[in-house]
């Protein structure tokens, strides 16, 4: 079965890969992912606030008490070279590149087009084959206009594209006023791919301690539906390739995503639940399904159910909750 696909200009034997997750922190795990057939490895994100925060925090701790007390001009050894914030990340890319053969996709996460974007170049220098720009913002400022936020995304992409030669994908949330318009603008600026969609860590409330606690709820297949809609809407209209992330757990989920237009399919929750070998299982089931349904290649189904090709395009466009609600029984 020919499962080959092209994503971000990279020729891949199939579309399945682990999405950005802590799985890549452990080199053994990365090797297991490769053994399970991952078409590429997506790094977890290097966060803007991690870089800037780590620098500010470390410098503050070193400086605050220095030159204050007669017996102790400082409290830490002075090292001429420190790579605060990014070095562990870059080092991990280098180690992964040295250990595996499949492409490695770096990931940079931030919301402002400032100095930290230099790390795109460093990620490329560390050996990444492509870069995923993860724009991850919770728009809490009532004074900030939606257009301004979109402009920030575009500015970031523009700066990053100017500083690297590797392909750049943009990973977004669905929370934009006109997502299709934004996608089109990103495409126009030269985005090599769009990744739909990032998932927010959801704050939860501990009612005993009255504290807000971050909680990561693993996804399930129901989350795929939102992604299918937007894959289908965008598919065929963009030069950029498309990837799906969030809600892909099974071979059927993968097939749906590809039919909606995905060139790459990223799994995280399923791998965290079932282990890296689940990638192999999904791929094998996919092949089995495709054989049973007499497909001979992935490209045959790629985008087959997008807005322009599916039999009932309005189904993707209308806000069809009435029909859904009517079909729901307790």
């Amino acid at each position, binding site marked *: 079965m020919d499962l080959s696909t092209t994503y971000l200009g990279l020729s891949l034997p199939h579309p399945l890969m682990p999405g950005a997750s802590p799985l890549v922190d452990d080199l053994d795990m990365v090797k297991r992912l490769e053994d399970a057939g991952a078409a590429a490895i997506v790094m977890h994100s290097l966060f803007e606030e991690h870089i800037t925060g780590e620098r500010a925090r*470390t410098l503050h701790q070193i*400086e605050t008490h*220095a030159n204050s*007390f007669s017996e102790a001009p*400082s409290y*830490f*050894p002075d*090292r001429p070279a420190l790579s605060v*914030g990014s070095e562990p990340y870059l080092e991990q890319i280098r180690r992964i590149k040295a250990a595996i053969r499949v492409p490695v996709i770096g990931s940079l996460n931030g919301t402002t087009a400032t100095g930290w974007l*230099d790390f795109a170049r460093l990620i490329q220098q560390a050996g990444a084959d492509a870069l995923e720009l993860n724009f991850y913002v919770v728009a809490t400022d009532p004074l900030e206009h939606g257009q301004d936020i979109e402009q920030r995304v575009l500015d970031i992409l523009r700066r990053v594209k100017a500083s690297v030669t590797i392909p750049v994908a943009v990973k977004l949330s669905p929370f934009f006023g006109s997502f299709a318009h934004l996608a089109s603008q990103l495409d126009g600026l030269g985005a090599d791919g769009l990744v739909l969609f990032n998932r927010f860590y959801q704050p939860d409330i501990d009612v005993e301690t009255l504290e807000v606690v971050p909680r990561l709820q693993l996804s399930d297949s129901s989350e795929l539906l939102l992604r299918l809609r937007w894959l289908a809407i965008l598919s065929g209209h963009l030069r950029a390739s498309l990837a799906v992330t969030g809600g892909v757990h099974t071979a059927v989920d993968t097939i749906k995503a590809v039919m909606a237009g995905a060139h790459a399919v990223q799994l995280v929750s399923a791998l965290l639940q079932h282990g890296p070998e689940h990638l192999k299982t999904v791929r094998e089931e996919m092949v089995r399904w495709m054989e049973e349904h007499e497909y001979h290649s992935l490209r045959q189904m790629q985008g087959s159910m997008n807005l322009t090709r599916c039999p009932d395009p309005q189904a993707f466009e209308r806000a069809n909750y009435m029909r859904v609600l009517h079909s729901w029984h307790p």
Partner: protein
Amino acid sequence: MNLRRVLTIDGNEAVASVAYRTNEVIAIYPITPASAMGELADEWATQQQPNLWGTVPKIAQMQSEGGAAGAVHGALQAGALTTTFTASQGLLLMIPNLYKIAGELTSFCMHVATRTVATHALSIFGDHSDVMACRQTGFALLTSGSVQEAHDLACVAQAATLATRIPFIHGFDGFRTSHEIAKIEELTDTDLRAMIDENLIQAHRERALTPDRPVLRGTAQNPDAFFQAREACHPFYAACPDRVQRVMDQFAALTGRQYHLFDYAGHPDADRVIVLMGSGADTVHETVEWLRERGERVGVLKVRLYRPFSVQQFLAALPPTIRALAVLDRTKEPGSVGEPLYLDVVAALHEGRAEGLSRFTEEPTVIGGRYGLSSKEFTPAMVKAVFDELTNTRPTRHFTVGITDDVSRTSLSVDPEFDIEPSEVLRAVFFGLGSDGTVGANKNSIKIIGEGTDRWVQGYFVYDSRKAGAMTISHLRMSPRPIRSASLIRQASFLACHQFDFLDRYDVLEYAAPGGIFLLNATDAADRVWDQLPREAQTQILDKHLRFYVINAYRVSGDAGLGRRINTIMQTCFFALSGILPIERAIVEIKKTIQETYGKWGADTVQKNLAAVDQALAHLHEVRLPGRVTATRSVAPLVPDDAPGFVKKVTALLLAGKGDWLPVSAFPVDGTWPVGTAKWDKRNLAQEIPVWDPAICIQCNKCAMVCPHAAIRAKVYAPAALTGAPAAFKAVAYKAHEFPGFRYTIQVAPEDCTGCNLCVMVCPAKDKSNPKHKAIDMQAQRPLREVERHNYAFFLQLPEADRATVKPDVKGIQFLEPLFEYSSACPGCGETPYIKLLTQLFGDRALIANATGCSSIYGGNLPTTPYSVNRDGRGPAWSNSLFEDNAEFGFGFRLALDQHREQAWTLLRRLAPQLGTTLVDELLQADQHSEAGLAAQRQRVAVLKQTLATLASPEARRLTTLADYLVQKSVWIVGGDGWAYDIGYGGLDHVLAMGQDVNILVLDTEVYSNTGGQQSKATPMGAAAKFASSGKATPKKDLGLLAMTYGTAYVARIAFGGKDTQTVRAFQEAESFSGPSLLIAYSPCIAHGYDLKFGLDQQKLAVESGYWPLYRFDPRRIEQGVPALQLDSVPSCSDLTQFMRNETRFRIVEHQDPERFRELAAAAQRQNAYRMALYQQLATLVPPTAARGAERPSSS
């Protein structure tokens, strides 16, 4: 081409630079003010910088200076070029080896930043008492008086030791030279190679012990041999001075800087000469030049080579015209005829006469004086006073200068107005707060000017002795001619005050020279700031015709994202106002420095600082002076009127920075100092203080428990006590049952709180409708200050809870009065809550032996003392002996106390017929295991004393003196990990083995905190520390496990933030155990590198991750047939990296080398797991004897 760089560096670096390049082995131990030399050597070795021969010197941090000396001795014997750096007590610990090294005629040069030896008190500052204590060891003593000299003579000493085989101590004044930054010409490697003779190195190597040419050293000799053999070395000493002079001549030919064994400067026909060594000699030199210009025939003889003392060279160096000599010693030798240098001069003159070497037209009068002890200022005015004294026909034979000795009348009077500093010298003084970066910026400024212009520069920095809210004073001189002044600036043409509040605490403007510039950082604008100044400041500004500038630097730093780091902003203003450089060039240089300093912290960090520089001048404004004083307020007295006489007379002056004014009579004769004076020092450090909301409070008292400064307290009291309470005083019904009907208050000490936030962080009570609001919240201090001051005063006079009624748990104990309060420890200190708890539980009957370190500094460094007394006048009796001997010192307390009690018992029994057998029996058999028992015994002792007062016998008088020892005393031996794990471990181990009833509290910060973060054996694997800068590769020593092996000591590992109940229980069990007890207390510290308001969370994480397992090992449990060890924590999360990443000490390892961090973290994780497995096994073990004992009843 031998191009010599001009460097602007301090004395320590100048010396270390030579020592590092000319040696192969460096064994050290940190001690102020010499620590920096070892640290620099370690840094250079870590950077793989080679010495002259292309290898990287081996650096070893030892467990003590004694250990360092042993390692040095060994390395020398094995043929390596070896050095070490030390001072004060450290040098004293090396003395046994110094005798050996000298006795074996070993080429060796060590460098000493001379420091006061502790006598009636410890002092970290400089004098010659340490090197003078070594003059009899057989070492040559070579002294330097400035940074350039220290650099040069380090080289001369190293070359000379090889040439003479006599080992050298090269000494230079601690702080005054070691910490002074000055512009010097660097000796290049070529210079050093030219000075160090390879043949002599070869000879040194050939004398090494080697099995290829075996010899034996270190024999034991008998009366038939020792004396002659000891004399055999004499020719080497006789030849030494000339050889040293030849080395100095060789150095002069190379560099143009000529030194002599005795350097004379002054009038060729001088009639009066001062003889001295060290940095003071330059002060005399500049005064001599000034006096000569005014026609006086005066001179100075600078002693370079003090041992071996060359009589011939000494006499030859003096003009034959002298009539009177004053010999100045920077040390005191009580009971001697005179101080060491004086005696040598007198003897030399005498011998010169006897040997016909004397060239004097008339025999000079010789007088001797002491000056500059513990870095006491030595100024041209004092030099003038000495020269004036020499004009007297009968000058004071033994005098002091620089103090007012109104007891023995030794002091010379000094003209305070005498000032010789030329106007061409730009003098700048800056008052800063430790954390605002002032000193760092000034160090940069000096470098910019020193290395970027042809001006000579000098920077000297004076620090507060307190750790919290420390003030710094920077003294900067910039001159077109070389600077000889080795004293503080008194008249600054540029004066900056970076903290507005200082104007209300210190006489900042005293430093301003008439017509000078005064720059103030203030939040008020230029047109409003004048009215905010106290009367004293306004008066001085007008009287001295100062130009007054103001900047709101906090606004600029805040806008730039730099928080309260105002250093580069104030630095820019300094350059703009002083005109030392064209401002455009200055800004370029400042920005270059910013790039160099912050480049490694990323473009954002650099950008913020650059933005601050750009904005600085726009916010700098001159204040238009109104021409008259308009202030409506004066500076308030630092201590109130109701303070005790001693506090008003002595402490207040020390607090104001006017301690130099105090005469000898103001001081106790033996170092004894009153307790409880910290409460008079209201420092108002906190910008925000905790505010209590009684409606939400659950009355857990945890806020009081965790407070490092006893600045938030709990009381429970009868309602009637509230009579007269201030209107704002808060009180609610007490909720628990042990004090029915009582009222309860949590009260902050608003002016003593340091704003660390720990009380807020620990508070578990939240407002249900607005959980952001807790029972303790932080609010701005200033608006609350007055009202809370009154509330606190009222709170303090409320009755204390009955110790016998209070429940002895975490909550109840907080009702016991802390007898350790408002110490100068850092905000958020992790050590002091343990000490405070100790004093709450046992303070009224505790003797504390305190090892040198942080706890002795915040516990006993003047100006104030934090240990206090209760209403009965009882409280901890505290003393610091040394760093290394603390366990033995406290052990001595125990021996004495036991002896006193035994004597009292004996006398009781003997006097029983007169005293009544009932009282005597009760006194002898009293159960003192509870507060009630102790109170009852105190009652009996009171009755006993009354009865004894009616008896006239000598035995009754003896028993009266000893009666208080019938009440059980609690001996506490307190210190940090540097003491317990390293330098004092031998003694600690021995005391544990002795079985006596002492309690040892180890405040484990896992690093040498007080001297600035050097590794100890308590430093954990993976942490970066000085001497382990790439992350410590070996595990932390398991002190508790070692102590457990005796099986007879109580051992507990505690962390009050991890489990406070276990901490309290461990203290109680340790004290009640009748043998030795060891408490190892996890103590968060600024050297860990995180905001200490998270100290409790981090302690919790330490416990949960298995980093800091909690346990108690109680030998009494063996008797009960159960394992002595009980684990009080079980690791609940297995990931150590989360804990590690919270702290800079671990994170900087990751920033340097992520792979190494991962490896060390994994190794530490394995080590922790292994340790926990071991503990778990031990926690199941019952010693066979106890097990058999348990079985015996059933088998019999």
